């Protein structure tokens, strides 16, 4: 691997990321399965970096799931997104930062469409007006929230308490970075580092002390695929894709996986359990699986936040093995306790996967 070559590619794919004053749009999947991640993002942005991040509780789904499953027509999707832009405009913001990679992709797609077909934009403005009596301005800056963390990776590094280094060996942790397909595969220029060698997560991992694994199936989809997952009979297709990735990363013995897409984080985590139960296989050497983090969780750990405040107990593959490597102290007792210290109940133990 010639790193210089990658850097050259990265230079070609740099994009403008606004410095402050963001209108934040949450993700359906992330807020459901990794609610701690979004909290962490806001906490880092507001408390640690002192940025202005605004969110409006009235914002809805972007309809991405419905759109990609052919349930919601494009005009509806565009109108819903236009409403988000209107909420942003009304709040006096120009920079929009979706938490979801699919939303990010969809926003990008909509803006690109309008750029080439202004008449469609006009039509959507009309629809939105008819439906809600709202108006909007096109966002000046649209980036994904992982782009924001990428932008401030050095500041986070400065304030960090933990490095992505194996405390016991002193070696950098080997990290698999997984980029959501909708981040840059549709519009390579809209992703940091492009579509083939995206550097948004690589940038974070490397500046926080870890090393990135470039394994053969790195580019491959996690397998989520809305249509595939939503219909039970098709889930075999979904899990097979994840399995392909795990098999490919296995020889590299990664310490953990990090993804910038909520769906990917979810499926790379959960499917490890499913594969273990179906076939009796895990892709680490100890039968425990490879821990999967969202980039917010990774940043939170680096910032020294408590793993249970980050919501790491919500993961299927247990993260304790990773916390031990990082040298992070944690209280086992606190894992399944709520904010007020009450017991929230423990999940059932899987048959094969060791937790």
């Amino acid at each position, binding site marked *: 691997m010639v790193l210089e070559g990658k850097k050259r590619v990265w230079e070609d794919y740099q994009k403008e990321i606004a410095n402050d004053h963001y209108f934040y749009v949450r993700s359906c999947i992330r807020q459901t399965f990794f609610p701690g991640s979004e909290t962490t993002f806001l906490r880092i942005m507001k408390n640690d970096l002192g940025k202005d991040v605004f969110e409006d509780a009235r914002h809805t789904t972007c309809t991405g799931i419905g759109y990609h499953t052919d349930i919601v027509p494009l005009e509806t999707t565009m109108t819903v997104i236009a409403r988000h832009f209107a909420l942003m405009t009304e709040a006096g913001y120009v920079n929009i930062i979706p938490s979801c990679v699919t939303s990010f992709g969809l926003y990008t797609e909509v803006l690109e469409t309008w750029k080439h077909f202004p008449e469609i934009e006009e039509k959507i403005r009309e629809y939105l007006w008819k439906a809600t009596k709202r108006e909007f301005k096109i966002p000046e800056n649209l980036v994904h929230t992982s782009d924001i963390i990428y932008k401030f990776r050095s500041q986070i590094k400065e304030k960090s308490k933990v490095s992505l280094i194996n405390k016991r060996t002193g070696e950098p942790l080997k990290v698999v970075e997984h980029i959501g397909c909708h981040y840059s595969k549709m519009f390579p220029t809209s992703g940091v580092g492009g579509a083939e060698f995206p550097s948004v997560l690589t940038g974070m991992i490397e500046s926080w002390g870890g090393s990135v694994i470039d394994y053969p199936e790195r580019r491959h989809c996690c397998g989520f695929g809305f249509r595939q997952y939503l219909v039970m009979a098709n889930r075999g*297709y979904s899990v097979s894709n994840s399995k392909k990735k795990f098999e490919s990363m296995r020889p590299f013995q990664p310490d953990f996986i990090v993804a910038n897409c909520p769906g990917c984080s979810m499926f790379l985590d959960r499917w490890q359990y499913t594969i273990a139960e179906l076939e009796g296989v895990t892709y680490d050497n100890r039968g425990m699986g490879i821990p999967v983090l969202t980039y917010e969780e990774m940043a939170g750990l680096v910032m020294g936040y408590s793993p249970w405040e980050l919501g790491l107990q919500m993961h299927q593959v247990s993260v304790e093995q990773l916390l031990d490597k990082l040298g992070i102290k944690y209280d086992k007792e606190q894992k399944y306790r709520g904010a007020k210290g009450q017991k929230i109940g423990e999940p059932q133990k899987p048959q094969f996967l060791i937790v």
Partner: protein
Amino acid sequence: MKEWGYSILKGRQIDFENNDFSISRFVELHEPSFSWCIGCGSCTATCSAAKFTDFNPRKVNLLIQRGEIKGIEDEIAKCMLCGKCQLVCPRGINTRNVVQNIKRAISKSYAL
């Protein structure tokens, strides 16, 4: 065991590194023209058997070369050995001997 309602699929990808080339090697040894195919498809177009069933001599040849030999036995059994394919092959492939050697490779007694 739980009822999952789905299972992990093998996929359609030709996994070259883990495929079985025993038939391919055997046929190539005994009939080198086996690997001269350029995929024009005239054999399949003229094939007597292909007129009646889903049989594609070009594809059988190719899949064996790629080491994809699952179910090849049933496929090759469809050949009537009439020899029309050999008459139309532009590369001069000895198609009947290819078929013959595929069968020979499959049958255990002549595997070596």
